[in-house]
């Protein structure tokens, strides 16, 4: 069984020690979890192991032999493979599943000029069968669901006989049942001798899947647990460096509720079937359900980004019509969208440009942007959201995920919202940033109606006052979160689509 042992791993960038003397051991048949807040050094560690950097400090041994990994090809040679969070970047959407699986083979000179489709298909089927994946090999990758794509990338790594598989936040965009399926596959591969480095923010998952747990903070290894010694509270403490206060803010008494937004009989094709909801100022309305249940679609309609076929949106007692997001924003409905990189940010641009864009008119006189109005506001938002580093000129792409999300939220804080919509707002951000997002949502709920949609059931139940459960484009339950049981919500979210999901995945 292959053993990869890294000792004293370090990486210094100009002015920053990104990783400092970290030891890590990956053994076959073990899942080693790596956790830490954003900026703790997880990415740097992964990049060293996969040959992204030409140089690093420390030594790496494979089965007792010192090896050096200076380029991606080295990592491949030693059987180290990584599945990144954003799988789309490694797949070619218009090629078929089979072609994507065997893309490297297609690129070798021995393959000849013509593509031998039948052999390609057969080989692809064999690979998928080994992992018990039922994906049509002729389908273009563009038609696959996100979990299917992720499994495909894992399958591709396995087909190259990887002995060490690094999964970088594999569950960030997966729903509960998809996560279960992924875990089944991880366990199966583990039995076959594969060693995993599993990077995630979700501690509950780690508790379920990991054999070893290493916690990084500020580039250093601050704690190590194994399955027996792991304790959630200790892990959180190690990640944050301080004793965590309650992760979720305390609720406000609900008597001061005021009806702000009402949605009546919204229908949108097969995606939303007769949805009616009410949102109040003074409470956080949670919406949960599997990915694809219709949460994002509903929020997009409320934000004017999509148009429903039928139904009314009533804001402060008046029916409103939104042709585009601009109209919703004028009415004080602000959306923090899912997929912040693509829908919420200009990653090449500065924090300042990002934060002031929606209300740029308020920082202008005769259409000239006035820096003496703009910059103080940006600094105010940076301080209020505890953005790190507190630099208005920093390009957003250089910020960690949590800080990027703060920028997305920060752009709506100039004006008081009537309704604030959060769509999967804590996806891929660290616990510290999550805590701040929760606190902010609670704070906003005093002055606005807050709708918080998330496929993370625990999150919604702990944060929200009231929860709606969606499934298959319908609302299948409404509960007071103080009175409901987690299991009940989960079952409700899963049950009817269970057969359908199982059919397409297993």
């Amino acid at each position, binding site marked *: 069984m292959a053993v990869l042992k890294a000792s004293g791993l370090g990486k210094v960038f*100009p*002015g*920053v020690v990104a990783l400092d003397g970290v030891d890590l051991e990956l053994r076959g048949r073990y899942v080693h979890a790596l956790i830490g807040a954003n900026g703790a050094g997880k990415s740097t560690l992964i990049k060293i192991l996969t040959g992204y950097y030409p140089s690093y400090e420390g030594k790496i041994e494979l089965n007792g032999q010192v090896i050096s990994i200076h380029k991606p090809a080295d990592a491949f040679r030693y059987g180290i493979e990584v599945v990144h969070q954003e799988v789309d970047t490694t797949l070619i959407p218009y090629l078929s599943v089979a072609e994507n699986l065997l893309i490297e083979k297609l690129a070798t000179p021995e393959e000849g000029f013509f593509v031998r489709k039948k052999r390609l298909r057969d080989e692809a089927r064999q690979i998928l069968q080994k992992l018990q994946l039922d994906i049509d090999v002729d389908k273009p990758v563009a038609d696959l669901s996100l979990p299917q794509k992720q499994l495909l990338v894992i399958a591709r790594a396995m087909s190259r006989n990887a002995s060490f598989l690094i999964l970088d936040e594999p569950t960030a965009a997966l729903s509960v049942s998809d996560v279960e399926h992924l875990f089944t596959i991880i366990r199966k591969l583990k039995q076959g001798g594969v060693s995993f480095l599993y990077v995630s923010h979700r501690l509950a998952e780690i508790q379920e899947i990991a054999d070893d747990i290493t916690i990084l903070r500020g580039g250093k290894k601050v704690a190590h647990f194994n399955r027996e010694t792991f304790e959630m509270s200790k892990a959180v403490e190690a990640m944050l460096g301080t004793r965590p206060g309650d992760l979720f803010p305390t609720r406000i008494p609900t008597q001061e509720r005021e009806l702000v937004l009402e949605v009546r009989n919204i229908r949108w094709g097969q995606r939303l079937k007769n949805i009616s909801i009410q949102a109040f100022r003074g409470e956080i309305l949670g919406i949960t359900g599997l990915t694809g249940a219709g949460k994002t679609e509903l929020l997009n309609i409320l*934000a004017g*980004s999509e148009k429903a076929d039928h139904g009314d949106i009533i804001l402060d007692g008046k029916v409103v019509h939104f042709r*585009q*997001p*601009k109209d919703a*924003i*004028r009415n004080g409905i602000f*959306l923090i*969208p899912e997929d912040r990189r*693509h*829908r*919420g*940010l*200009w*990653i*090449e*641009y*500065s924090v*300042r*440009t990002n934060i*002031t*864009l*929606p209300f*740029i*008119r308020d*920082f*202008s006189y005769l*259409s*000239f*942007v006035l820096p003496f109005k703009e910059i103080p506001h940006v600094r105010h938002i940076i301080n209020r959201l505890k953005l790190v580093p507190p*630099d*208005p*000129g*920093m*390009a957003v792409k*250089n910020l960690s995920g949590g800080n990027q999300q703060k920028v997305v939220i920060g*752009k709506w804080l100039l004006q008081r919202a009537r309704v604030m919509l959060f769509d999967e707002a804590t996806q891929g951000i660290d616990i510290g940033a999550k805590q701040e997002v929760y606190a902010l949502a609670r704070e906003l709920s005093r002055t606005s109606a807050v709708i918080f949609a998330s496929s993370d059931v625990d999150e919604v139940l702990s944060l929200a006052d009231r929860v709606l459960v969606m499934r298959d484009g319908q609302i299948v339950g409404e509960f007071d979160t103080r009175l409901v049981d987690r299991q009940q919500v989960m079952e409700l979210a899963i049950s009817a689509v269970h057969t359908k999901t199982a059919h397409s995945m297993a």
Partner: protein
Amino acid sequence: MTSDKTPTASKQVGIAEAKPLNIHVGSILSRFFLRYGLILTLILVSLFFSIRTQAFASVDNLLDILRAVSILTIVALGVTFSVVVNGFDVSVGAVTGLAVILSTALMVIWGVPWYFAILICLAVGVIIGLLNSFLIIRLRIPDLLATLGVLYLVQGLQMSITKGDAVYKGMTNPWSPTREIAGGAIHPNFLFLGQGFVLSSEVFRGIPVPVVIMFVIVLVAFIFLEFSRFGRIFYAVGGNIEAARLAGVDVNKVRMTAYVISSVLATIGGLVLAARIGSGAVKAGDPYLLDAVAATYFGFAVLNARRANVFGTVLGAIFVGVMLNGLTMMNIPWYIQDVIKGLVLIVSLGLSYYTTRR
């Protein structure tokens, strides 16, 4: 908006200073070349030409160079606007050509007053911009293809106006059954736009009018894109159209405006060109397309901006102009000039983009 980048860059240099000397010098040098490499190249090329040719460094020649690049700069700024919103407009060369023929034909063949001719051309420019944006936004044709189609359309219209003839004083009217001589002429006021000088005196020839027009347009475009909220919005659409839409920007209106600006600037370029040559040559606008695209993409690399910007485009246009002027003065045959132009572009852009990658 360029100033946004400055704090980050200077900060990184500051941090690098704490490192051992070799890294320090290396990183500062590479940062310096990244930012100023192209400007440096421009200065070096100019120096080279002034040493090799006596006439190059004179004020008059400097203004001549600026006059020579004025039309290109105006057209290139149009392309820049389309690229800023992450689009592309290849119809500009044809639109420039159309303005040349249309303005002169209106005056020479139909005897339209010069100011009406200008207004009609500008209106046609707006209409072409609207057509481009209709094809791209409403019909969702990819920008390159839509504007390519419009390129052919406009080029065909251009030639149809005179049945393929050039426009000059005393030409036969192509639309007259009796082939009579066209009665109109190009008004001196119109010619002034391309051939006139302002601030002339006994010791100073004056500033060419095209340079003044270019300067005004450059200034307005620069202020619009760099300091106004519209600039923010334009770059927001170009940087991430979906994020811009969700932040309340009417993205289609912005894109439409950019294409209209592009066509109008191409039209203005054509009007100045017609005034400068004093007649309506067929397909006179064609060469401007490639030079304008080159200038715009050259501008990406200036000051390491990594996006289309007014300052970069102007510098790119001047760069092209300086080379042409210098090469002509050195008596390099015209048929080799394109080769040299291509080589210099490739080398300077290659250096800049190669260093940017890291």
